[in-house]
């Protein structure tokens, strides 16, 4: 066994260790440890990615010494390591970008707790990505929930408390459904390791037994994860949660947390149930419809939003709709598009949140639109970053969003005829809606007149961390937009590794 094969496990454990180390440290120390570990994890994940690319196959890693079918396993393929790399990079950028605010927003004695939560969150994210058995998945889903809740409520304002509560309730409902589906799956197959369940299920499907329980399992599992990832009718917690947490939390939560559940769902679709069975079960059609509705409703809510953060948060609702639409197309191309959009959204949303914070700082910390008039001139970097993020979301060529859109459209045309037209039309309508709320804001921040007097002449000079984070995210955006071919190839290969 190659040493590199330990890296996925190392990353998860390292994050936890970082959390433990941070406990006695003060804020500054915890910050250093966390940043170091997150960078290290990014590096490890990248090495894993290279390793898999090099060897051409994924690998599984058995935790503890229990052999299958009993033990817990990790599985690293192209897709997992790719996402792990991007996720840890985004966490790093988000932390750097919001670092000064972490220290001002959060009570001094709790700063180290914040970093512990971030460590915990990253470890759970990585575990959800890498896991190869449902047991581990469930445990880390819960850890994820708890740490997320902590990240939301650590900035002790009334709204963040309530947002955390609402988030918890929705999440717990989701995990309850997920858990019961796991239990039933165990009841039907007698296994918790993905590969074994898959084998059993294939046999069951071939013999025609347990059709109804299987359908119930699929629905419970899908609905549970959909609720947790904030698919349209279950999104009500998102705006408050993203809008009122400290900015690093917002960036991380909106770009990563819900995506990890979506990835888990994709993984279950492929590795546990089997994609053909999923397509037969028609559950994808439900996802498809809700995805489409979410695309529109999210955008409409974003247009109605009166504050910039809520606007971005609602935009996340729409973007999650995109991803579910891609899954709902039930083709490999659709899945590639969905995964690519996970990446796009991760790099873009964090960019948007960080730059929105910059604009907000340049506007007397007011979040309503009129205050933002001309903010891009008061904080040029944040303005440019917001501009680029918005253009990416709208789908201007050379940026990541365009490629996502292209992949979605191509997938739709290649896929089933019945889904093609709705997809295309909703895609375009949602582009127009995106334009309305994003570019409206861009126009506003680039309007040099009409700024309120009291901070007309404010000039914001961002911290080096902020500059670095924004520049890095911008570059990642362009990178995804310009060199999408290798990345889509990677994703396609990764999905083929699942099957």
């Amino acid at each position: 066994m190659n040493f590199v094969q330990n890296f996925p496990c190392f990353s998860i454990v390292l994050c936890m260790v970082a959390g433990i180390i941070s406990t006695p440290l003060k804020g500054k120390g915890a910050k250093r440890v966390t940043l170091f570990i997150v960078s290290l994890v990014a590096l490890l994940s990248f090495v894993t990615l290279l390793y898999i690319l090099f060897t051409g196959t994924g690998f599984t890693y058995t935790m503890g010494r229990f052999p299958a079918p009993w033990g817990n396993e990790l599985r690293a393929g192209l897709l997992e390591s790719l996402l792990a790399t991007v996720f840890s990079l985004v966490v790093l950028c988000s932390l750097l970008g919001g670092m000064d605010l972490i220290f001002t927003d959060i009570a001094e004695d709790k700063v180290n707790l914040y970093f512990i939560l971030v460590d915990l969150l990253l470890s759970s994210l990585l575990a959800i990505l890498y896991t190869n058995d449902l047991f581990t998945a469930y445990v880390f889903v819960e850890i994820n929930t708890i740490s997320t809740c902590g990240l939301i409520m650590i900035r002790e304002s009334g709204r963040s408390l309530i947002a955390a509560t609402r988030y918890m309730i929705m999440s717990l409902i989701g995990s309850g459904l997920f858990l019961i589906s796991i239990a039933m799956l165990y009841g039907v197959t007698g296994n918790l390791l993905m590969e074994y369940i898959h084998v059993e299920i294939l046999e069951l499907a071939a013999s025609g037994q347990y059709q109804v329980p299987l359908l119930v399992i699929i629905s419970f599992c899908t609905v549970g994860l959909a609720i947790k990832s904030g698919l349209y009718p279950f999104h009500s917690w998102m705006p408050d949660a993203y809008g009122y947490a400290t900015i690093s939390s917002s960036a991380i939560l909106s770009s990563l947390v819900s995506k990890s559940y979506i990835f888990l769902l994709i993984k279950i679709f492929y590795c546990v149930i089997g994609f053909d069975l999923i397509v037969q079960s028609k559950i994808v059609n439900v996802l498809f419809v809700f995805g489409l509705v979410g695309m529109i409703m999210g955008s409409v809510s974003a247009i109605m939003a009166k504050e910039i953060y809520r606007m971005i948060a609602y935009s996340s609702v729409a973007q999650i709709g995109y991803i579910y639409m891609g899954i709902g197309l039930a083709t490999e191309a659709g899945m590639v598009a969905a995964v690519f959009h996970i990446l796009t959204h991760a790099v873009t949303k964090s960019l948007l949140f960080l730059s929105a914070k910059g604009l907000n700082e340049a506007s007397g910390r007011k979040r309503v639109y009129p205050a933002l008039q001309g903010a891009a001139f008061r904080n040029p970097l944040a303005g440019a970053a917001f501009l680029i993020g918005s253009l990416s979301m709208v789908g201007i060529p050379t940026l990541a969003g365009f490629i996502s859109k292209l992949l979605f459209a191509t997938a739709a045309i290649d896929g089933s005829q019945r889904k093609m037209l709705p997809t295309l039309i909703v895609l375009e309508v949602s582009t127009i809606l995106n334009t309305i709320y994003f570019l409206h804001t861009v126009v506003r921040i680039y309007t040099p007149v009409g700024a309120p007097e009291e901070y007309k002449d404010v000039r914001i000079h961002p911290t080096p961390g902020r500059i670095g984070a924004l520049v890095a995210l911008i570059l990642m955006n362009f990178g995804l937009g310009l060199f999408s071919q290798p990345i889509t190839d990677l994703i396609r290969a990764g999905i083929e590794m699942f099957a």
Partner: protein
Amino acid sequence: MGPNLALNVEEVAAVILFGIGFTTLLLHRNMIKKIIGLNIMDTSVYLFLAAMGYIEGRAAPIVENGVTDAEYYINPIPSGLVLTGIVVSVSVTALMLALTVRMYRRYHSLDLDEILIRMQREELK
């Protein structure tokens, strides 16, 4: 159907409990009742898992009498899952209770709607 129900009495109970817990969590406005609902829901799943995990005639997966044959014991994973689940649900409950305390201190209410109203009123000030 009848015999099946009678045979699987644990599972039936679990499903009923799950329903009760789920609706309580979803529909009640009182925070404490929500938390109770959450616990009922979780417990039902554990009951279900434990019932599933038990195979008639086998022992708990603790090595007894030096017998290491896997056929002798039940699969330890579901039991492990239940144990972990209990831990998780305890911590989640704790977290929820902590949140509830915080909110009660701030808004003097356990009713979620009431809290929302008070929050908005507070922000308007």
